[in-house]
């Protein structure tokens, strides 16, 4: 068994910066991530990226090396390829590594499991050749792989970022089909004050748009009635703009309309969540240090609410400070003094968020999908199936699950949970908070009996000192 003062789950910006700060305060840290290299989603595989790849992905990507370098600290043990599948008694973490289950005990646990792309159920989204925009970016970051003849569909800064990265890679997308409207932009202008405080993000956005324009990429803005065509594979996208129908023939369709907190681990230990109307998702309830209702468990980064990579790194450090105080490594005064500049940085990072969230809202057509659109990819349950369960008296996702198996597949509702909550909430006229979400039970990821059998032969390993 491993043991440490602090177990950090997730080696993205939040987890890496928390690990470093905690280690610097004298805590022993065990950092677990299922990926073979540190970086999380934004800095995926940053240490292996070649010069050309670094140029394609930009300095926002290569900046992540400062964080991965920080992991070289004597108090930090980073286990790569460690898939966490269960948290017990708020202090023990079960994970699988190299086909064997292992156990770790920590006095405190920090969940830094990041975000998932918001489910975007549109007709045809289960066809081979349809992926998320983030998936295309992961292939570019990790393996130098580009998607040819691709159409990017949806909304938000990440859609533009992936488009510019594809342009720089020499494999530009055929077009962008964007779902935000002029009315969204007009509404977002009341947040312009905050956005100006977060001006670097605005500038970045404008630069990306300019880069796309210079590359001659067509942008269809205000698109609705989006559907992916294809028989065995995606072969085209259809949509309407201003009442006019369009069709673009293509080989890959990359969907994206924002990211939402990955709440699976937090939910599995019954940490309470609340609905965030501005971001259209659930977020765990945490105090200003990231502490949850389970007092030994903290959450930092996009898993606690979407704020982006820099905000995630700052939040990770803030949680680490309170954990260090909690374990007697610093006084309250020291903690507050060190947290002060981090908090002001966090405020600046979050300033542009309300503007971005309202200028690039989720695609309405995917929040209320047509009856015959599949919502639960694993069990092939349609929006109409879910609506019918509301007619049968189902108020929440767990009841609907019992009727139609939505959320029963291996993804455990990661790509249908929010859709099901939203559909039931709309049908029953009950707010999302009261409608609730799937009950998540371990294992968070499938684990085999063979892997668990290996646990019996564990030995005790002390991490750090």
């Amino acid at each position, binding site marked *: 068994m491993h043991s440490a003062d602090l177990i950090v789950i997730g080696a993205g910006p939040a987890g890496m910066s928390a690990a470093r700060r905690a280690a610097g305060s004298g805590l022993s840290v065990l950092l677990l991530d*299922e990926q*073979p290299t540190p970086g999380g*989603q934004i800095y995926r595989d940053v240490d292996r990226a*070649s010069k*050309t790849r670094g140029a394609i992905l930009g300095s926002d990507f290569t900046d992540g090396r400062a964080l991965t370098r920080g992991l070289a600290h004597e108090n930090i043990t980073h286990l790569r390829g460690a*898939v966490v599948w269960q948290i017990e008694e708020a202090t023990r973490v079960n994970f699988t590594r190299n086909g064997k289950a292992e156990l770790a005990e920590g006095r405190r646990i920090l969940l830094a499991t990041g975000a*998932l*792309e918001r489910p975007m159920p549109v007709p045809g989204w*289960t*066809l*081979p*050749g*349809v*992926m*998320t925009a*983030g*998936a295309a970016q*992961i*292939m570019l970051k*990790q*393996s*130098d*792989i*580009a*998607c*040819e*003849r*691709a159409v990017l569909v949806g909304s938000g800064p990440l859609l533009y970022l992936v488009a510019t990265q594809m342009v720089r*890679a*020499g*494999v530009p997308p055929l077009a962008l089909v964007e779902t935000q409207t002029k009315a969204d932009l007009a509404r977002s202008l009341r947040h312009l004050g905050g956005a100006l405080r977060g001006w670097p993000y605005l500038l970045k956005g404008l630069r990306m748009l300019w880069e796309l324009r210079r590359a001659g990429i067509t942008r269809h803005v205000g698109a609705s009635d989006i559907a992916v065509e294809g028989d*065995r*594979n995606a072969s085209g996208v259809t949509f309407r703009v201003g009442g006019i129908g369009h069709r673009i023939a293509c*080989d*890959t369709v990359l969907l994206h309309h924002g990211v939402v907190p*990955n709440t699976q681990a937090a939910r599995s230990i019954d940490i309470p969540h609340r609905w965030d109307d501005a971001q259209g998702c659930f977020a765990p309830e945490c105090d200003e240090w990231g502490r949850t209702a389970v007092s030994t468990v903290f959450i930092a980064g996009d898993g606690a609410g979407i704020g982006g990579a820099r905000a995630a790194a700052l939040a990770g450090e803030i949680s680490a400070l309170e954990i260090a105080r909690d374990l007697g490594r610093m006084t309250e005064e020291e903690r507050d003094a060190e947290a002060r500049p981090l908090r002001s940085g966090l405020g600046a990072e979050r300033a542009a968020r309300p503007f971005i969230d309202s200028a690039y809202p989720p695609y309405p057509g995917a929040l209320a999908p047509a009856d015959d659109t599949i919502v639960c*990819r*694993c*069990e*092939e349950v349609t929006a109409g199936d879910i609506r019918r369960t509301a007619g049968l008296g189902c108020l929440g996702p767990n009841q609907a699950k019992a009727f139609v198996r939505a959320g029963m*597949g*291996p*993804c455990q509702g*990661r*790509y249908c949970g929010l859709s099901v909550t939203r559909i039931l909430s709309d049908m029953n006229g009950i707010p999302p908070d009261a409608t609730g979400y799937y009950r998540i039970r371990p*294992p968070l*990821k*499938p*684990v*085999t*009996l063979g892997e668990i059998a290996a646990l019996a032969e564990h030995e005790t390993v002390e991490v750090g000192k």
Partner: protein
Amino acid sequence: MKPDSPFREIDPETDRVTVRFGSSELSLPRGENLAGALLVAGVMPFRHTPLSGAPRGPFCMMGACYDCLVEIDGINRQACMLQVTEGLQIERPSINRAIKGAGNA
């Protein structure tokens, strides 16, 4: 396999190993992401759904959707979470086992 895959390695890796996918032999870049390497090699779909038999391929590339499941040594695994190693023997998951994941019944 199909040479007309829409997925392309920008800077093809020269260090390659041989793996089997079903009845075909593929030469894949050592150490790279298995799902990505299979896509470049023209493998599609990866699996069929147990319910309707619909074809599926990688969707999220981050271990969340399970649409990239393949069978290796009798166990269903997420190809996007694996690296290419010499001599892998990969099969399409047999339909009735696909959804049960790796023994998570």
